[in-house]
């Protein structure tokens, strides 16, 4: 229940730089998700906030206080671990009560706090059991309960759902979002799963190779990815990147010719793009529809019911994926043509930087 700021936090292990100048300002009561591929530094960053690892340089400020040199317990944080880190020899009750026992609180107070946490998490009838007797989702809730009783300023979650099966993960996502609403606490959540990030976060921090690629709301990231990396990382299936050549620019946008595809006039700020430059046009599979446009031969078709994920190959050899209507009349081996609305397209320069879209949906936030 407090704002949190990171100021030029860096972390090196010997010569290896794991985090490079991280600056973040997280608001009070915000749910922020750190997302990125394995090894991007997201867990290290969380551990630095928790105080389990020390930053090589930089400050961590929680609720206006510089906590960079404080022990974890003095930072006003609590943490839920990927492995749950439940004590197998203690009952659910004692697991949840553990932080209170450390503080030597009177038994009546311990009892009241554990009862309240158990009530919130629907664990009341599980209190006498050992963790070994619980399901994965219940263990997860016990770990969260142990966090709740400390009444921390900031909750930290390190990939808490990655050990659960897909169905349970979906349920727990909803529960965690509800919990955040009920506790109205600041939460930082690390995951490599972009679906978790998109569904739960107020704002998402996309980390890549130790630096922040973009920090914004889920829909900002979706509609206005700052970089090629963010564009391909967010969205499922991944965005298609089709190489293209700039034919000309004007105030309305950029005229390009896709390699092995049609000419398009894309409504983006042309910036420094000049005629003859090579660019990449980003097209989300869900924005492609059957119609006049890009010709491709269908290699694999995945019908999921509502959508038919169609993987094809263009005449240039470029792979292209389209998420068509579930009943779309296509078959593997067919040559089909898919159309795109130029307003939905993204354009990336040679450096991976994005050209700002002019006709993207207006964001509420």
């Amino acid at each position, binding site marked *: 229940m407090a704002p949190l700021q990171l100021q030029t936090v860096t972390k090196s292990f010997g010569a290896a730089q794991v985090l490079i100048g991280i600056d973040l300002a997280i608001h009070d009561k915000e749910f922020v998700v750190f997302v990125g591929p394995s090894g991007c530094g997201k867990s290290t960053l969380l551990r630095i906030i928790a105080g*389990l690892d020390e930053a090589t340089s930089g400050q961590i400020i929680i609720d206006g206080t510089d906590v960079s040199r404080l022990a*974890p317990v003095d930072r006003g*944080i609590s943490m839920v671990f990927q492995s*749950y880190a439940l*004590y197998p020899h203690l009952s659910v009750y004692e697991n949840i009560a*553990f*932080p209170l026992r450390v503080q030597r609180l009177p038994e009546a107070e311990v009892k009241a706090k554990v009862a309240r946490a158990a009530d919130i998490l629907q664990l009341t009838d599980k209190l006498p059991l050992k963790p070994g007797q619980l399901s994965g989702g219940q263990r997860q809730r016990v770990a969260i309960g142990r966090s709740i009783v400390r009444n921390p300023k900031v909750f930290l979650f390190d990939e808490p759902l990655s050990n659960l099966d897909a169905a349970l993960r979906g349920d727990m996502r909803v529960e965690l979002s509800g919990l955040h609403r009920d506790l109205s606490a600041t939460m930082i959540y690390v995951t490599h799963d972009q679906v978790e990030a998109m569904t739960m976060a107020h704002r998402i921090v996309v980390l890549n190779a130790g630096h922040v690629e973009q920090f914004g709301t889920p829909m900002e990231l979706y509609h206005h990815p700052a970089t090629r990396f963010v564009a391909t990382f967010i969205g499922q299936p991944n965005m298609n990147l089709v190489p293209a050549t700039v034919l000309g620019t004007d105030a309305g946008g950029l005229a390009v010719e896709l390699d092995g595809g049609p000419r398009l006039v894309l409504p983006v700020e042309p910036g420094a793009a000049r005629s003859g430059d090579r660019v990449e046009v980003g097209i989300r599979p869900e924005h492609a529809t059957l119609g006049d446009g890009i010709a491709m031969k269908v290699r694999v078709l995945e019908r999921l019911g509502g959508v038919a994920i169609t993987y094809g190959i263009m005449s240039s050899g470029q792979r292209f994926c389209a998420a068509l209507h579930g009943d779309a009349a296509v078959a593997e081996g067919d040559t089909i043509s898919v159309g795109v609305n130029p307003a939905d397209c993204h354009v990336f320069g040679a450096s991976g930087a994005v050209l700002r879209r002019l006709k993207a949906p207006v964001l509420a936030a």
Partner: protein
Amino acid sequence: MSDQMVSDTASAPAVARRRGLSETWFAWLLIAPAVLFTAVIVAWPLLETVRLSFTDATINSESWVGLANYHELLGSAKFYVVVGRTFFWMALSVSLKLVVGLIGASLLAAAVPGRALFRALIMPPWVIPIAIGCIGWLWLYNGQFGFISGMGQRLGLLDGPFEFLAYKRSAFYSAIVTDVWVGTPMVSLFFLAAMQGVNRDLYEAAWVDGAGRWYRFRRITIPQIMPTIISMALLSAIWTFNSFDIIYILTQGGPRGGTTTMIIDAYKTAFGNYNLGEGATRAVAIVVLLGLFSLAYLNILNRVNRHYGVK
């Protein structure tokens, strides 16, 4: 192909049937070598010992005396002194091995530079032959030339040369020290292995919650390695109960029986005085006591494992 595999895996009883053997006999055939081996190495000597305990066997004569040896043994006050001493020997030595082993393992588990070297350095007491280690201790305990007596005099703790193995009480505790010296490294290594098996997240979670080092040790490490502590206590108790070589090399059970435990008593009776029958009776008493002890301990172990969430 898959039919072939199924018939292959199901073929052992099939082979047995083809050879005209029932499945039971086939099973007996398979375990026969192990049964034979056990019978020769364990069962026959054990039965022979029990048989001897009902005789007054010496080296060259033997006749059946029924329960006379048992009557005599159980009626002798000296026997109970030896039993008491044996249990005291076991309890003290095992407790020390566990406590010192736990402290040693904790130090070895700490992330200090050169800990691999320390881990190697605790091995010698366990690795060198016990006889050689004991000869070293004989020298240490020697009153005229021994290191301990010499240091004691220099530091003013002893008035003059002190022969540690010459007095009942000091000989007993000296033998305990040597027994602990030999037995601790293995206990330490087992504890260290168990400590390294504890999920590190548990410590980090406790640290985040404000638990200090001692609190984490008490409420996480000890309960997590409790099954190992109990197992080591059981094994160590049996080995210490039967510890023969250390006592025999240091004191041969003396002075005046001060270090005579049940196993030394049995040996001296059977092979010192050549009363094989009476010696066998004492050996049977050891088997019975250790058997009861093991049963009780296994029962405790099961309960502890259940309590600490181990299957």
